[in-house]
């Protein structure tokens, strides 16, 4: 084991995959000499050269389209979209092209590519503080991954690069500096599997990405109040590992979903609906969602922080299921 940051975990995954597989290459805006807007690819162009760490123009449709084409042609591209907000400029390529080809062309085309991108906020205003994992997660043909820890950042990215389908890999700008234990071995974390990261008996909190850490802090507070919360890291958002949630709800009979996307038609809405359909009888209380209120993000720091869900809201939601 070594202690790495989330960013270092990602960089190691890229480096190790590029060393081991000549088909893997990186493309995106400022991924070269600049080192990536969040410094994930720093040093990689020096090591692998400009042909394998390819600087692109500011042209998101071309970045994703080129990755789709290269994947069709036998490569394993990792395309970086500077932030998830800019992915909207490539939505046609992601939804109408990457997600459709394997099915529409009867399995004759494969699109083994990864789109790495970043959610997050920090006084960036309405257009730069969004997250769209729920949009991507509603598209058949895509896989959607959102790691919360350095270990998963590395293990899930390697698994995503080795996957034969288009994977939307959503990082979080406020997690790049967090540290955690990462195995020194050549390990993978499987896509499509959630993880119980803290066992508990009284209620279940399901979260992902930054909200997993919020959920864990909330669970610690709840423990001080004598409440035992089980915390699940969803890790993959499409396909969702509902079995792990059903199993946990079967034990605790109470569920809170913690997410950073807008509440309406969010990941939590999907989970709550599935739980209502599949294990309604197991519930002792309504499912609660802690999500971003349906408001475009303001710039002013006090207002922004007022919107972002914190452990305070998670604890309150958890307590409401126990009343």
């Amino acid at each position, binding site marked *: 084991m070594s202690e790495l940051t989330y960013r270092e975990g990602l960089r190691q995954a890229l480096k190790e995959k590029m060393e081991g597989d000549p088909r893997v290459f990186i493309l995106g805006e400022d991924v070269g000499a600049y080192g990536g807007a969040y410094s994930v690819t720093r040093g990689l162009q020096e090591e692998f050269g400009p042909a394998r760490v390819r600087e*692109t123009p500011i042209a998101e449709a071309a970045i994703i389209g*080129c*990755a789709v084409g290269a994947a*069709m*042609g036998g490569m394993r591209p990792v395309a970086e979209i500077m932030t998830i907000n800019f992915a909207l400029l490539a939505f046609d390529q992601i939804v109408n092209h990457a997600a459709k080809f394997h099915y*529409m*062309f*009867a399995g004759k085309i494969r699109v083994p590519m990864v789109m790495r991108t970043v959610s997050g906020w920090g006084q960036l205003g309405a257009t730069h503080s969004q997250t769209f994992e729920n949009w991507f997660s509603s598209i058949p*043909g895509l896989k959607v991954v959102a790691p919360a820890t350095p270990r998963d950042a590395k293990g899930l990215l390697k698994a995503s690069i080795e996957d034969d389908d288009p994977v939307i890999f959503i990082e979080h700008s406020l997690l790049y500096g967090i540290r955690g234990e990462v195995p020194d071995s050549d390990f993978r974390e499987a896509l499509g599997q959630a993880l119980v990261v803290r066992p508990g008996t009284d209620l279940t909190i399901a979260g992902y990405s930054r909200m997993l850490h919020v959920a864990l802090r909330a669970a610690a507070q709840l423990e001080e109040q004598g409440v035992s919360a089980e915390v699940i890291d969803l890790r993959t958002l*499409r396909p969702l590992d509902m079995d792990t949630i059903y199993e946990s709800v079967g034990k605790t009979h109470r569920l809170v979903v913690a997410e950073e996307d807008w509440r309406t038609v969010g990941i939590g809405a999907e989970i709550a609906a599935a739980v209502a359909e599949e294990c309604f009888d197991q519930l002792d209380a309504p499912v609660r969602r802690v999500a971003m209120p349906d408001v475009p993000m303001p710039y002013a720091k006090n207002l922004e922080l007022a919107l972002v869900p914190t452990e305070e809201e998670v604890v309150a939601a958890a307590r409401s299921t126990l009343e």
Partner: protein
Amino acid sequence: MAQPRSQRQGTSPESIKLLAYGRARSRKAPQTHRLLDWYRQMYLIRRFEEAAAEMYALGKIGGFLHLYIGEEAVAVGAMAALQPQDHLLTHYRDHGYALARGSDPGAVMAELFGRSTGVTHGMGGSMHLVNAERNFWGGHAIVGGHIVIAPGLALAAVMQDEKRVVVDVFGDGATAIGEFHEGVNLAAIWNLPVIFLVENNLYGMGARPEEQFKVPEIFRRAQAYGIPGKRVDGMDVTAVNRVMSEAIERARGGGGPMIVEAITYRFRGHSMADAESYRQKAEVRKWQKRDPIRVLDETLVKGGLVARRELHEIQRRVELQIQDAIVFADTSPFPSLDTLFQNIYAMPLPDRGGAVSGPQVVIPPLLQAKAARLTQTSEERSRRQPALTSIEGDSGGPGGRPTPAEPQGATEADASLPDRGTARSSRGKAGVDSDGRAPAESALPAGKRPARSRKLPQPGRPGGRT
């Protein structure tokens, strides 16, 4: 909004500055056998499309149907310039490209019919044809979407040291889309082997280039990307082939991308739903005098290269091929329910109760019953109205030796192209087989092509409308 017809100026062949066509380096004329093969391919595409229109009218084909009639010389000339290893991406007007790249007309027609024997087993339809063995990676139906994918395919070839060139085909309308700029720019800065072949048929649905572009000469835009651009007469298969051959070999040699603009004209509407309110019939008639099949016909016959009967023989064989294709499509099974959940993912994940990931999904009984009902309805409807009427006194029944049909052009005058011969419609002629059996009832051994037992409606005037 489109102007009323009377207020709009026609776009006649003369109004397109032919002098703007790039002058190809002089090469010796193609050999006669190549010209004959191109004639065969163009005639095949023409008749395939005419038959598809008939099948659409019969309800055998659904959705959108975009015919390639009038534009055949572009696909045939361009495809003849490709090597087998080269990649092809096209727009949704893709039947001609699929055929010119060597796809089986039966499998293409079956796809249009939405049958399991189609090129994508009924998943893609008319606009999404594919042929992996021939490196044809799709008709693409989002206008301009594939213009950014072509550089990626080319990059993969370069990174793997393969001498492949990518030909990416789209229409004039697609050059207004942002992806055109992004894709051409990327190919240019990375010097990728991509030929952007613009089929300028003078209408983006109903909008003329002058309505869409301040610079309607699309090839001139290449200058802005620092790459060559060339215009070619898209009604002349030899000219298309020459310009495309030069462009492709230049790219193969490391010369980088190029824009080739082929000026062409579709004789039919944008799709089957198009009432063509945006152009006058006289304009269409003017362009039909430059029908690409007629142009080549004149080169071959008036040029003294072949006797007319050789073209008749080609036409006769094509008619049989088209009949075969229709019967094959019409007697092919509809896709089964178990294909519905296949190929959503290349690497399905274990089912953990979330979204559908792969074929291991449990199909709900209600969906199963609904699908079975719909399949039965489709099959019954298909049996009730077979695609082709029977040939009277047909000696070649199902499984028997096919009877060669008479040449469709009965006299030399009838067959010379275009504007001669009689246009006939076959609508309402559908019936049952000579032995009274509907075609779908004849149990076909797996892999066996149905025998030719039905007669295709008389062809419309090549270069004209049926």
